[in-house]
């Protein structure tokens, strides 16, 4: 127990206790020093900061440089500063970088950096997954950007519509850089999303129920689920596009049964939620900052949470409003128009909540508040023009005009960039211990506010006058020159605004005014810790009894007596390993104490394997792919290599007996189960995307299978699926055996599962090899072999897990008490068999459904 306690406090609000074990805990959670520490590091502050800096680095490359050049080109009519080809590359790069490589890493960085402090926990649930996520985002971005070194910059727009992006019209490797580079970064985005979801749902301070969670955590929760559901279809779309480009499949070739609209569907199922993926965390930042600077609790917390969730759902029913002009049936148009207009309702609810908070509060005018008010002004204009383009007749007029450019920049700059600046000004003192300069902050704000409006407002008018998007120049007679010149002048107000920000950051890090723990009088938990915080954030976990603990609680570690004993007990124990706490999802009662993963080189190795797969495909040296897949498998196995639990079962039990909370020093059962659950969901979304692609292609083909291809035989797939179903049953027998302590029966059943798995897949592969058509003859063959290949990859993942589990079972690793890995593999295998049955069922029975 931490009897000897010193206050670590300065600034308003309660302070944290600093027990004598503080330094010991700090060392436990710190990464190793030096270069090795940089490569193996998993500490959340480090990863979060890196993600944000990487996003900002790509912003300077793609967001700023490209836009300045484009605006210079358009400043006057018939300008020849850049060629049409270079202009195509500039707008493609600008959109791509900002949508994939800037805002997403910045907000995921915010999340990984902030959440442990904000939620009152010591780490994120999967620190190694966080590291993997960072490396893949970085490598993906660099792979994409390396196209400039080879003069192969993608030029088909950030949406890469087929057939322009297909092999016929983009035969060189430029589009492959786009597909493959971004593919790597998308993997990283999904990995971070899984980490954030579990972090928010399962790793909060005792007492921080869902209804006491800060708005930013709610926003990040919805954001992360949206990433999972939106990015996965894009990965599948990218896979199909690369197969068309590199392997000769026919997904997007209408002459061979494909459909170019299929790409648009897959892209925009990602693309529109992506806008809200960027917007929602920004609203979370606003909802954190406004109450602090208005000295007023947020008005309508429950309504705001509901609005976030409603936006999350509705955003998945909007994608075809990007396709109003492609000839969809009128009833379909009405569905998407209705959903597009409806989303203004929850956005409006949030707006009313913010305005009411301002109305009821008393403003403290500091830079973060300036940016929030700037956000409100600019975003509302972008929101209103958004409702305008949701109306089909208006959209048919404004489609692909500068009106849409104005709309989206008002939304993304006002709705996203301003809150990011507000968030940096707000939280910078916490993580550096220095205040950003207020005077420079005002310059920063006003230059950006004026610059953004001067640049983008005239685009509304130019668009309504008929100026189309993505043109590298325009005629003198068009009458658009004045508006374009004003827009270009506006960019030269924005650029010094960003320069002032960079200077402010550099200057303040070197000689900024020291920040106390809580320089703004903030209400949430992060302001209780020191600035900068220790590596582990919390020695004694806080006990939360209010939504605004820093305002409402006199002490942060007071509460139910048993809970108090628990948090103090954990501050003094175990001190040999990195202990963190899992809580009940809804009630935030401590549920498990577990060992958080420590620094490791394997996430970097795995990320290298992933990027190598994509590079090998890019340069078409395909034998390297096999080696890279092996590297991924080796990396993943090393990453999850079991470690001897640093505590005996008796020691675990002693703590549980005293505090009533289960201990798993070998690694968490709960977060592993959740991680596997979300992994299964990810595979399921990918599978659903392929199934939808199958049915879409079937929908547009008058004959299925096409003439000349017979319906496939049913016996082999039924036999193969039956054997796999039996293998799933045998795996559950293995699980029962290990629970019963029967090691012999357990190993035999595990071995039986593996043998049956190989037999079932073997039957299916033999049948696939004997089919009379291939993957390149028609879209039918393309989707047939792609879906079958996907199911075999899922099977392979399960088979690798089973093999590793069998190895460890023979080594005696699993016991009655510690066998969570086997249970998780059983879950995955059950899902894999279910996907197998549904997938091959569709492929083989589909042709008979006529």
């Amino acid at each position, binding site marked *: 127990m931490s009897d000897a306690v010193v206050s670590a406090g300065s600034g308003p609000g309660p302070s944290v206790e600093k027990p004598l074990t503080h330094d010991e805990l700090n060392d436990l959670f710190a990464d190793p020093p030096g270069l090795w520490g940089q490569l193996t590091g998993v500490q959340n502050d480090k990863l979060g900061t890196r993600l944000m800096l990487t996003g900002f680095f790509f912003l300077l490359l793609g967001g700023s440089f490209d836009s300045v050049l484009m605006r210079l080109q358009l400043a006057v009519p018939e300008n020849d500063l850049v060629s049409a080809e270079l202009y195509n590359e500039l707008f493609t790069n600008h959109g791509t970088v900002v949508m994939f490589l800037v805002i997403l890493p910045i907000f995921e960085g915010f999340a990984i950096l902030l959440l442990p402090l904000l939620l009152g926990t010591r780490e994120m649930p999967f620190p190694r997954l966080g590291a993997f996520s960072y490396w893949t985002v970085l490598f993906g971005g660099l792979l994409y950007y390396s196209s400039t070194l080879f003069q192969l910059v993608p030029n088909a727009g950030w949406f890469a519509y087929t057939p322009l992006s297909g092999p016929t019209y983009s035969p060189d490797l430029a589009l492959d850089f786009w597909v493959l580079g971004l593919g790597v970064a998308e993997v990283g985005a999904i990995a971070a999303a899984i980490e954030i979801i579990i972090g928010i749902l399962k790793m909060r301070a005792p007492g921080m129920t*869902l209804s006491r969670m800060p708005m930013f955590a709610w926003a990040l929760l919805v954001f992360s689920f949206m990433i999972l559901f939106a990015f996965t279809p894009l990965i599948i779309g990218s896979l199909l596009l690369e197969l068309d480009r590199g392997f000769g499949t026919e997904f997007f070739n209408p002459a061979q049964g494909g459909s170019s609209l299929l790409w648009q569907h897959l892209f925009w199922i990602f693309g529109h939620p992506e806008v809200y993926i960027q917007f929602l965390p920004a609203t979370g930042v606003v909802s954190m900052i406004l109450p602090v600077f208005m000295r007023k609790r947020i008005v309508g917390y429950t309504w705001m949470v509901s609005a976030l969730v409603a936006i999350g*759902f509705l955003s998945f029913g909007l994608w075809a409003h990007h396709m109003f002009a492609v000839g969809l049936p009128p009833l379909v148009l009405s569905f998407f128009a209705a959903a597009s*207009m409806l989303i203004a309702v929850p956005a409006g609810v949030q707006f009313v909540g913010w305005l009411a908070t301002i109305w009821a509060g008393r403003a403290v005018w500091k830079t973060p508040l300036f940016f929030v008010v700037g956000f409100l002004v600019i975003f509302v204009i972008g929101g209103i023009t958004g409702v305008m383009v949701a109306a089909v007749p208006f959209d048919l007029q404004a489609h692909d005009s500068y009106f849409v450019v104005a709309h989206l920049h008002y939304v993304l700059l006002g709705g996203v960039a301003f809150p990011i600046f507000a968030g940096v000004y707000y939280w910078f003192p916490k993580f550096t211990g220095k205040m950003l300069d207020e005077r420079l902050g005002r310059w920063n704000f006003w230059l950006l506010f004026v610059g953004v409006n001067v640049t983008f407002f005239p685009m509304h008018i130019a668009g309504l006058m008929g100026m189309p998007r993505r043109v590298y120049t325009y005629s003198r007679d068009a009458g658009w020159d004045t508006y374009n010149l004003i827009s270009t002048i506006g960019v030269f107000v924005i650029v010094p605004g960003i320069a002032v920000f960079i200077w402010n950051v550099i200057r303040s890090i070197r000689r900024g005014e020291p920040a106390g723990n809580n320089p703004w009088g903030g209400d949430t938990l992060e302001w209780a810790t020191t600035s900068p915080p220790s590596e582990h954030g919390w020695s004694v976990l806080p006990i939360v009894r209010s939504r605004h603990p820093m305002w409402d609680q006199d002490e942060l570690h007071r509460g139910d007596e*048993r809970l108090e004993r628990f948090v103090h007990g954990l501050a003094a124990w175990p001190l040999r390993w990195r202990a963190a706490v899992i809580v009940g999802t809804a009630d935030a009662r401590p*549920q498990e104490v577990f060992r958080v993963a420590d620094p490791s080189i394997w996430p970097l190795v795995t990320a290298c394997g992933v990027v190598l797969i994509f590079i090998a495909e890019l340069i078409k040296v395909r034998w390297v792919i096999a080696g890279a897949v092996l590297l991924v498998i080796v990396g993943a196995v090393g990453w999850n290599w079991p470690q001897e639990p640093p505590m005996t079962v008796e020691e675990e039990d002693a703590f549980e007996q005293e505090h009533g909370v*289960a201990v798993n020093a070998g690694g968490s*059962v709960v977060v592993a*189960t959740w991680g596997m659950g979300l992994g299964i969901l990810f595979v399921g979304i990918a599978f659903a995307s392929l199934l939808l692609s199958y049915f879409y292609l*079937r929908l547009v083909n008058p004959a299925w299978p096409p003439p000349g291809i017979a319906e496939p035989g049913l016996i082999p797939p039924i036999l193969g699926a039956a054997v796999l179903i039996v293998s799933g049953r045998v795996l559950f027998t293995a699980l029962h055996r290990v629970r019963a302590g029967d090691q012999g029966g357990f190993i035999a059943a595990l071995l039986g599962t593996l043998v049956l798995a190989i037999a079932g897949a073997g039957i299916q592969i033999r049948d696939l090899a004997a089919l009379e058509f291939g993957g390149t003859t028609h879209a039918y063959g393309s989707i047939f072999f792609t879906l079958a290949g996907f199911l075999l990859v899922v099977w392979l993942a399960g088979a690798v897990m089973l093999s590793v589990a069998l190895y460890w079972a023979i080594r005696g690793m699993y016991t009655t008490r510690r*066998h969570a890995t086997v249970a998780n593999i059983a879950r995955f295998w059950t899902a894999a068999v279910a996907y197998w049955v549904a997938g091959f069922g569709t492929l083989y029975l589909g042709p008979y459904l006529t």
Partner: protein
Amino acid sequence: MTDPQEPVPVSDGGRTAPGGTPYAVDVSRDRLARLTWVAFLGGPATWLAHFMLVYLVVEAGCSGSGPGLRLFNSPVPSTVTLVSTALAAVATLGFARWSYRSWAAGDGGPAADDATELSGPVADREHGGTMAFAGFLLSLFSFVAVLFLGLPALVLEC
């Protein structure tokens, strides 16, 4: 947090087995959490399911040319849209009623989200509270959204 001596209900995530020996795989059982989420997300999930259903049926009936799609010819798209709209509207109202009753069944004391409540149990009550009210709001909004989406089928066939 439970007393070690007290029998632990299976559905509680607090501990894993009577006597304090964790069965690793059972820790995550958390019935309360599941129910909370169902009531909270039921409305919008119904909206999304309804949306996907009517979109796919209308796409199949109005723009599809594949074999067997005669089944979806007019007036099937508009009929399916209207019938499923009615069913989804009833379902969202059902979720609204469930959430409202959960919220109203609270003990009348300060809600768990009331910032002034500093004493009392750490956990949310089983009934009531922010999540239930948010579920109520979301369900009502989903009801409006379902109708807004489906009613054009009264005048459009395809």
